[in-house]
């Protein structure tokens, strides 16, 4: 050991760490304490997550048990309503048909249900938090390091407490996905509202708008492009995360990818991967076209 340190004494050679014994005690203390708390409140936790569990199962059943042509028709209708672009609808139809042809329809439905629920939760949480952050500088300064942690902490790491608390299954999967997917929603809502033209806000003030009228009449409509970018990012992050979430027992395309990794099934891996890409592109194009359509007033210049 000393040889790697040019013969220096140990204190200078190696960074003085806490003794192994202390560290072990600390680890065990925290882990056991945490488990103890979770065990103590397990009933309450179960009760709290039951509606989520029910919602997830219902949606997944709805997606997987409905005949494929109805699901396809519904998806294409939604894409059409959002984008009003026949090109995007045709592209989506081709993508979905390819997924079906390669036998991935049911897994895709499971994943879609999962992503849909996670996205809805992420928006429902992210929008109000983003609005609060835009209104209070102090809240923003507290929130921003938390978001940094959520975005940079490797997702496998926070899967551990999630599993400890919620066990294995869909609910912990959704929670992990939401933790991963909600930061862009919060950040972009906050940013969008803060970027609204100060003059327009002042005009609203000058006409006597109260804060509710300002929020719904000015700030949200004018920050909609940025908020829609947040929704778009959230969907993309959720799709990326479903593969990781399959490690805690979420089914669908992610599980197939995980199996393919473990068994080195090259073809299965890529087919499932491409299925995820196809869904991602459909979501992305449809939501972007929707966001653009909401902004049609800003397109036509007067000259």
């Amino acid at each position, binding site marked *: 050991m000393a040889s790697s340190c040019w013969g220096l004494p140990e204190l200078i050679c190696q960074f003085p760490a806490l003794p192994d014994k202390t560290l072990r005690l600390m680890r065990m203390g925290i882990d056991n304490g945490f488990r103890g708390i979770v065990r103590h409140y397990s009933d309450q936790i179960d009760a709290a997550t039951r509606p989520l569990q029910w919602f997830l199962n219902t949606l997944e059943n709805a997606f997987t048990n409905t005949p494929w042509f109805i699901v396809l028709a519904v998806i294409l209708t939604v894409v059409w309503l959002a984008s009003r672009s026949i090109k995007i609808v045709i592209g989506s139809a081709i993508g979905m048909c390819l997924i079906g042809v390669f036998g991935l329809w049911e897994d895709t439905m499971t994943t879609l249900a999962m992503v849909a629920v996670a996205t809805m939760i992420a928006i429902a949480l992210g929008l109000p938090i983003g609005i609060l952050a835009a209104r209070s500088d102090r809240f923003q300064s507290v929130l921003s390091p938390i978001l940094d942690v959520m975005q940079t902490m490797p997702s496998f790491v926070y899967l551990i407490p999630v599993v400890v608390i919620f066990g294995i299954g869909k609910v912990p999967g959704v929670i992990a996905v939401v933790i991963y997917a909600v930061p862009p929603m919060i950040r972009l809502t906050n940013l969008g509202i803060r970027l609204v033209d100060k003059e*327009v806000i*002042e005009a*609203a*003030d000058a006409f006597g708008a109260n804060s509710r009228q300002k929020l719904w009449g000015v700030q949200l409509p004018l920050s909609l492009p940025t908020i829609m970018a947040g929704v778009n990012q959230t969907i993309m992050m959720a799709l990326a995360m479903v593969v990781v979430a399959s490690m805690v027992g979420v089914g669908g395309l992610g599980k197939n990818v995980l199996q393919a990794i473990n068994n080195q099934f090259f073809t299965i891996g890529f087919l499932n991967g491409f299925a995820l890409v196809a869904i991602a592109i459909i979501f992305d194009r449809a939501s972007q076209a929707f966001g653009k359509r909401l902004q049609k007033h800003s397109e036509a210049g007067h000259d």
Partner: protein
Amino acid sequence: MTDSTNTAPKERSGIEIRNLYKIFGPNAEHYIEAVQNGMSKDELNDKHNHVLGLQNINLELPPGQISVIMGLSGSGKSTLIRHINGLIMPTSGEILYNGRDVMKMTPDELREFRRHETAMVFQKFALLPHRTILENTRYGLDIQGIDTAKSNPIARRWIDRVGLSGYEDYYPNQLSGGMQQRVGLARALANDADILLMDEAFSALDPLIRMDMQKVLLDLQAELKKTIVFITHDLDEALRLGDTIAILRDGKVEQVGTGQEIVLHPANDYIAEFVREVNRGRVIRAATVATPLPEGDTPLPKLRLKGATTLELAARKLAERDVRNATVLGKDGRPMGVIDMHTMLTAMVTPATVDDSEDEDSEEDAA
């Protein structure tokens, strides 16, 4: 030009600004006393890092008239106008309207005050880009909670009054700057508020469109008789629109008066510098330079001019009729004086109250 003989109903209240100070900075309250006791703007800025925005403003803005507040950038004029509807709160002082102090209003009262008593027009229009022209125009009414069935006809009427009929369903950025500001004006007028605050409302417009908008405003004002506070950095605009003009510099009022008073009797060198380039013929009125009626029963000139006629217009009329003098009528419509070409020319070229230094300048120039 405006007929400055507006007679406002007796009951109406103007806006009174008393001992208004505004210091910008985190600790404004702390320095207010020092400033009131004469600490200079520079000292406050250099030593204490606070900015003195307005100092000891005392102004009366009479009801039913256009009061112009003029100053260059940084003079505090935009800060001052924002005090009137409480968008900026003073560090000390009072803004009185109908006996109430805007500064002392609760947030709810202030909101009601802004909804019903004031309306504002902004330099960069500040229209809502996601609302159509119609929806923009009725914005103030929407805020008041008025049903669209009621507010739409009102909005349509004002859109028509500012000459934008047919554009109701356009979005603001489909319109030119001049048209957008007409919407801004319509939005403010639809509110039916007594006070109209115009913050450099026409400064962002091309000169010709600006003249056009000034005419629109004067025409509307002749009929509506609102209490208008108009901010501008352009003296010509101030003289054209203002019943009274207050000139602001470094947060202080330098001079208050009618356009004629300011042009004829500038209070100091700063203002004299300002008014030097002004076209006097368009500012000075016949009544101001008319000589008293001749004694006895000398016949009066046949051509009769209103006292408020500008010299430029009076000169044109005299030239058209090919006469040398005219009778000037007072406010009561009876002859009050006589004016001739020579007096008019003298007044238009050099001030009627001869400023000696300027006279010498011109002689030197000639030599």
